[in-house]
């Protein structure tokens, strides 16, 4: 390649490669968050799930997912370019970019998009913790990464009909976060709450076993978001990833502050888990508008994104929806808010087009944002309900009560996630468990503590 073009390709690709690595790193964040917010007896199962998810995502997104986003010209559904060969740039450009010169190495482009798909999938799981059957979830994961997420992504990032309507979602408040949380909502509705979550009509605390792990996970998410949003410039040259990075940090910080204040108000306690969820709420909210608003607006968006979390957490408890991680408020509600916020705070020089209602006085963009959110929620909710429903009535979605009480680790994986500490966990041997589920052994041989 010629000098300047080679430099441009390399420079853009380095930046997006770095961003992709940061987004991949978010898997460590989700792992810690999910494991920290789950019970000790399920800790190993959470890790198994994270690995299977990410692995399935990698293979399926290569085989079909990416093609369903970027391949072909369909506005609503469909694709081409499956089982991609990244070593053939020409074919890649042909399949996905109409033969134009590429601004990114094919493998880098795919890797970055894969990392997003994997984030969306990771979010789904948050509501289903502590009681989900692995086999059922694996099937859902394949379908989500193959078709559901790509279809939503196609509508905007793949140049589909929502993009044509002017819908804006810079890095995926709706496409990634709301989509994941919506599928999670469908999942938890079909699963029902954890045993013991509601007693005499009131929510009972089932605290996650490690706030340190959970909140370190959220710091890692924050760090990973520095690839998620700024990397969504999809290039380095003539791209203001600096503004995006600054806005993202401001909204995250404001989210923590908003959630802390709200928690003290509505929960009467500076709940550590809400502080963490508030950071996520702020980050999710700024994800759509990060490139389209000024810093002061980022602070406002983050403050509200985080501040929404505690009341919604309490509301879900009231309507008896069990969401152990807070995925619905932090990824769902904050995702909706963030997407709409473009319609309120968007600046014409940054959107390159329409202004937000509070800035320019015009509600047009807000209207597009609104129906974009509605269709995203609607399509994902229906699709997830169908898929999870089909699984529920065939191979089953939830483990048996005995297995749930005993813990997924020993009942599903044959060993505790924390073998040396397990004496402390109540419920390790539940009422009514059938002996055979533990592979009973009749010939006495040896015992260990």
């Amino acid at each position, binding site marked *: 390649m010629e000098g300047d073009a080679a430099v441009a390709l390399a420079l853009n690709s380095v930046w997006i490669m770095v961003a992709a690595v940061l987004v991949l790193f978010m898997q460590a964040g989700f792992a810690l968050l999910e494991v920290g917010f789950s019970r000790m007896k399920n800790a190993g199962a959470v890790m198994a799930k994270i690995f299977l998810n990410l692995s399935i995502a990698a293979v399926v997104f290569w085989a079909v997912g990416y093609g369903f986003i970027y391949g072909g010209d369909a506005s609503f559904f469909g694709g081409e370019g499956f089982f991609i060969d990244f070593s053939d740039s020409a074919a890649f450009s042909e399949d996905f970019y109409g033969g134009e010169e590429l601004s990114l190495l094919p493998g880098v482009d795919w890797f970055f998009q894969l990392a997003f798909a994997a984030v969306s999938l990771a979010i789904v799981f948050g509501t289903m913790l502590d009681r989900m059957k692995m086999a059922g979830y694996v099937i859902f994961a394949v379908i989500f990464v193959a078709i559901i997420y790509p279809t939503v992504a196609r509508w905007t990032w793949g140049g589909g009909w929502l993009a044509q309507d002017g819908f804006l979602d810079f890095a995926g408040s709706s496409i990634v976060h709301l989509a994941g949380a919506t599928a999670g909502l469908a999942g938890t509705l079909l699963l029902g709450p954890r045993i013991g979550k509601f007693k005499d009509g009131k929510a009972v605390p089932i605290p996650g076993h490690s706030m340190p792990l959970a909140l370190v996970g959220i710091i890692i998410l924050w760090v990973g978001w520095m690839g998620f949003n700024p990397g969504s410039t999809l290039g380095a040259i003539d791209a203001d990833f600096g503004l995006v990075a600054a806005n993202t940090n401001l909204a995250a910080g404001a989210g923590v502050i908003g959630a802390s204040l709200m928690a003290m108000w509505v929960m009467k306690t500076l709940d550590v888990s809400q502080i963490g969820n508030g950071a996520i709420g702020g980050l999710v909210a700024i994800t759509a508008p990060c490139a389209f608003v000024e810093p002061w607006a980022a602070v406002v968006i983050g403050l509200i994104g985080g501040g929404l979390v505690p009341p919604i957490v309490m509301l879900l408890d009231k309507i008896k929806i069990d969401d152990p991680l807070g995925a619905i408020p932090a990824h769902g509600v904050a995702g909706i808010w963030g997407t709409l916020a473009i319609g309120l705070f968007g600046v014409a020089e940054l959107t390159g087009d329409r202004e937000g209602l509070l800035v320019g006085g015009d509600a047009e963009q807000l209207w597009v944002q609104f129906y974009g959110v509605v269709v995203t929620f609607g399509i994902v909710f229906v699709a997830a309900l169908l898929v999870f429903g089909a699984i529920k009535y065939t191979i089953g979605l939830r483990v048996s009560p005995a297995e749930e*009480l005993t813990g997924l680790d*020993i009942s599903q994986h*044959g*060993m*505790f996630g924390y*073998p040396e500490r*397990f*004496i*402390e*966990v*109540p*419920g*390790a*041997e*539940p*009422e*009514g468990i059938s*002996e055979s589920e*533990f*592979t*009973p*052994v*009749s010939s*006495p*041989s*040896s*015992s*260990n*503590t």
Partner: protein
Amino acid sequence: MKKIEAFIRHEALDAIRDSLEKLGLPSMSVSEVKGSGRQKGYTETYRGARTTVFLRPKLKLEIAVDDGDVDKAVDTILEHAHTGQAGDGKIFILPLEEAIRVRTAERGSVVLESHVEDAAA
């Protein structure tokens, strides 16, 4: 005075404690033990190696009561700890010669009397 020691399943604790409290017997100490008995062991597998674990987690309740409260307490435990499956546990009753309240240095069964007035309150 007697000391009741009951080895039970974790799940039974809340109900037992609530009922005993209503009967004016809120005092007890609880600890975690691992027990073996009629109940069978289960298998742990790690990296393909297997072992059978015969010791299963149980809770131990220790309740010192006045002679007159023994039956109440035992019945309450039996009621809530019973599932009918191997592993329900056992209750042991030991003689207790003296009981002393540290706060007041009082001695004898006054220390263990049911707090019916408290429970009623």
